[in-house]
């Protein structure tokens, strides 16, 4: 018998434009001991479905349908309250915000034990220590009295898991548990979840946007889109033989399935030279953060140069140093024989036109008060390249170029999707006809299908406009497909650099090897499990 049976679940949110259906007629079963993947892009209703199981939706949500747990109908607040924590528990996407900042780690784990099992403070504390050890928190005894802000993201997620599993629930709901984490940390958490499942038979539902993650640990998967389940089955069957057209699209958009877009050059000519670049920030307590240290790099004309690294690796700082948003505290950035740091006046203006940047967050990178057309036109007339009206006309052409319908010209960022915002950002960067385009995590906030479109667009623009591109990403699989050469950063230092194919085939440092191994990839995961 299935542990959980969801029958005709629907969730509707009240809004000022009338009710909005977030989940429509969703049915699925969870079998004891399995890991079920729920995959979908943003707005697919996957997280809402997950939250509905534990009654964690906001008050304005109306829930229809039936949820059976072990044959019992979870209708009404009391029935749900009875299973929360003891039978079903949940972990979330952003571990930092899901821990109370004013409560110690140990108390977080001990809290449900005292409540559900009535343990004394000392008993609960002893049990909490065991739980923290079981989720492999190093030196757990010493960390019992630590505050959440003193722990890294991965450690916080482990605390959240320990706290969720304190009362030995039979089902764990995991809502994008690794999305906010670095790849190597993600690999550790996924390993932990898999072990918990194998060792204690914990049933799990894993919600993720990433088929690579799902393929690594799930047995079955349901694919959601627009609030509906469009396909369900064993992960193997769905990946190898998708029935629904959207599933095929989703699988085809996986970074590992993208076509090879890199084109290494025959006779490279230098364009940029980073010589011993260092960026140090003083900290409040009088110390020094070495965001970037001793970096030597050369970037060739016309190539696509990838920079990969985890958070805190300094990859974004390097990008900002090249566009001169940050002045390096040591070393120099050389462009056409001149030191970028010394440019001023007309030279600096010329440099600004030659080097442009596209940013990570689709919405934050556009002024919310300006329309798409105004945003794209602004640099043209401010640089005196055309009158304001001519610039507005030119903006429309740029919209054509980034494949953004002209009917969107008068829309503000809030009325655009993430992918559309990124297209506006690209058009704005190209408005001054730069020679170098820096793309800083431009697709990491986007759905995979949109990511694939943006990558195709960038590849086309690169060829058409003879652009040099620096592509910064945490996603090794994308870099592998998209970049000619790669540099790997860690902790503010350049670990290694080389032609993409060579570097991936034979990484020369252990860190790069770990990074490559940790990157989730759907096909590789399937091959390993076979």
């Amino acid at each position, binding site marked *: 018998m299935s542990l959980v049976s969801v029958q005709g679940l629907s969730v509707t949110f009240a809004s000022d434009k009338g009710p909005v259906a977030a989940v429509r007629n969703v049915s699925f079963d969870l079998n004891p001991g399995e890991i079920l993947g729920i995959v979908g892009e943003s707005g697919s209703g996957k997280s809402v479905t997950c939250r509905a199981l534990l009654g964690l939706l906001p008050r304005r949500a109306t829930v229809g349908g039936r949820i059976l747990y072990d044959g019992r109908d979870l209708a009404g607040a009391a029935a749900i309250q009875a299973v929360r924590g003891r039978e079903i528990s949940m972990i979330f996407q952003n571990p930092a915000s899901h821990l*109370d900042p004013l409560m110690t780690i140990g108390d977080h784990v001990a809290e449900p034990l005292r409540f559900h099992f009535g343990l004394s403070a000392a008993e609960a504390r002893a049990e909490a220590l065991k739980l923290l050890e079981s989720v492999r928190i190093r030196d757990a005894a010493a960390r019992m009295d630590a505050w959440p802000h003193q722990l890294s993201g991965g450690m916080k997620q482990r605390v959240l898991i320990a706290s969720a599993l304190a009362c030995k629930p039979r089902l764990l709901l995991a809502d994008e548990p690794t999305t906010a984490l670095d790849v190597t940390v993600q690999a550790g958490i996924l390993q932990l979840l898999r072990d918990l499942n194998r060792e204690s038979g914990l049933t799990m539902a894993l919600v993720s946007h990433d088929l690579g993650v799902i393929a690594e640990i799930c047995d079955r998967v349901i694919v959601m889109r627009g609030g509906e389940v469009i396909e369900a089955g064993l992960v193997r069957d769905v990946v190898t033989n998708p029935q629904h057209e959207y599933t095929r699209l989703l699988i085809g958009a996986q970074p590992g399935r993208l076509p090879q877009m890199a084109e290494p050059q025959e006779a490279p000519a230098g364009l940029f030279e980073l010589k011993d670049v260092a960026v140090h920030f003083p900290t409040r307590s009088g110390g020094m953060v070495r965001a970037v240290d001793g970096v030597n790099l050369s970037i060739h004309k016309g190539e696509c140069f990838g920079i990969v690294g985890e958070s805190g690796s300094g990859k974004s700082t390097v990008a900002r140093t090249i566009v001169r948003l940050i002045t390096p505290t040591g070393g120099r950035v050389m462009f056409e024989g001149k030191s970028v740091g010394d440019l001023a006046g007309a030279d600096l203006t010329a440099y600004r036109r030659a080097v442009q940047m596209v940013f990570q967050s689709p919405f934050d990178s556009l002024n919310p008060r300006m329309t798409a057309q105004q945003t794209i036109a602004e640099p043209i007339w401010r640089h005196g390249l055309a009158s304001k009206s001519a610039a507005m006309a030119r903006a429309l052409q740029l919209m054509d170029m980034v494949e953004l319908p002209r009917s969107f010209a008068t829309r503000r960022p809030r009325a655009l999707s993430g992918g559309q915002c990124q297209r506006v950002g690209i058009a704005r960067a190209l408005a001054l006809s730069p020679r170098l385009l820096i793309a800083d995590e431009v697709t990491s906030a986007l759905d995979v299908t949109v990511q694939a479109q943006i990558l195709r667009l960038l590849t086309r623009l690169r060829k058409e406009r003879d652009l040099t591109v620096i592509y910064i990403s945490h996603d090794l699989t994308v870099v592998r497909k998209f970049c000619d050469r790669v540099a790997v950063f860690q902790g503010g230092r350049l670990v290694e650099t080389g032609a993409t194919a060579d570097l991936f085939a034979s990484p020369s440092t252990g860190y790069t090897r770990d990074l490559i191994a940790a990157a989730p990839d759907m096909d590789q995961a399937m091959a390993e499990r076979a």
Partner: protein
Amino acid sequence: MNSITFIGRRLLQIVPVLIGISLVSFFLIMMIPGDPVRIVLGPRATEAAVAAMRQEWGLDRPIWAQYLSYVGNTLTGDLGQSLKFRVPVLDLVLQYLPRTMFLVAYVLVLSLPATILMAVIAARNEGRWPDQLIRVISILGMTIPVFWLGVLFARYFGVKLGWFPVSGYGEGFVDHLHHLFLPAVSTSLWLAPLLTRNLRAALIEQTEADYVAASRAKGLPEGYIFRRHILRNSVLPTLNLLGVMIAFLIGGSVVVEIVYAVPGLGALMVGSVLGRDYFVIQGLTLVYAIATVAITLAIDIFTAAIDPRTSE
């Protein structure tokens, strides 16, 4: 970093503020349009009298020297002489201060329980009628002028019904409570709504915080989540506001002290302004500022004790 170094660093930050305060109160006197000596002595004063007074006040010396001796005097507790009462300003302050402090404490004792009660009721019933009712009350409370309410209360409860005295401070603790009841209530009717609005907003914001969802997922009961998590996290922003409000309250006490003829610092201040008793104005301004700095410091240290993040 531990809490001792935090307090030490916080104390160090106060030094420039104290210097700034001394500069402001020193230059306050310089802002007097015209010659203060002539204003004090009147138009018919002789040149000799004016010169003598200038020398007595040290106005013939360079300005930095005047400032240094001002700071020196202040540090030794010499805030100058009242022109009107002919006694040291410090003596006046010490005489009037306890009444204002009593009033402020009284207001806090009346306001805080009411605030917490109303904010919790409103937040736990967000959008429903108790919340709406408290919202209306708090909006009204913010718009009613304290002095107007004071005038009406004094005449109605004080004179007409004769329940409370309408002037003075009384003798002994119980008598103080009786005398200051109307002033404290009129001030509380303005303070409590302001605090309620902020605490309610903080509570509601915390109710929607992610860690609340996580606590619910663990099966913790709503009442417990509210007490143990939401309330604690809402105290911090409200505490900061309370610090600002106490400072505001010290200033706001001026009006009630006048309405109810309470012989406190505020009444002294207004009397000095109307009587152009410049050194009392200067001294009082300084005392008020130092009191505010002390309150802010106390609140900061208290916050640091509660919040593990501030002492990082």
